[in-house]
């Protein structure tokens, strides 16, 4: 099995915009993390745990794969 590092891309910024221009602070408060964590996830500097990823997807009422997906090579 290949051990190449996966590049995970997220659509949080676009989804926030689509949800009445939700702020990072509002999203952070909705899932109980700091705004800095949302900033880091959005920028791709931090990959959230599975639990946090599901929580983000649930806020936007989207399946997980619509929020996070692996970049095609």
């Amino acid at each position: 099995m290949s051990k190449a590092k996966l590049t995970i891309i997220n659509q949080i910024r676009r989804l926030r915009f689509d949800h009445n221009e939700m702020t990072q602070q509002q999203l952070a408060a909705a899932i109980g993390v700091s705004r800095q964590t949302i900033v880091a996830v959005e920028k791709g500097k931090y990959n959230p745990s599975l639990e946090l990823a599901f929580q983000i997807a649930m806020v936007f009422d989207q399946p997980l794969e619509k929020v996070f997906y692996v970049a095609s090579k």
Partner: protein
Amino acid sequence: MDPKKKNIFASLITAGIVAYWMYNQFPIIDMTDPIQVGQFLLKTIGVSVITNIIMVIVLSLLVGIFAGKEEKPVFDERDQLIELYVMRVILVIFSIGFVTTLGLVGWNNLSINMSLVVLYLCMYAANIIGDLLKLYWYR
């Protein structure tokens, strides 16, 4: 200002104040007397704890005055991860210092009194590096 950054800054300022305090105390203390060395290290820990509390209060007041409302502190999974990395780095630095001190005691005739001071300084340096790393990861 992020409360986490505020605490890191408070810790770094405390480290500076404690370093100045230690620098002034060194000439007064007889390093050959284990009782004086023990008292000095204990006093240093006390000074650093009290200074840190005062610095956190002072910075909180300053942030409140100049930056307005402070963000509510939230400790999440990313903070836990950063904390874990920092603890690992601190442990590695302290372990290197501990082994080096043992080497100096064993082969370079470093006195036990001085080795206590060196171990304390290792922990002190490791904490400063840990704080700087936190600052880097929270940038």
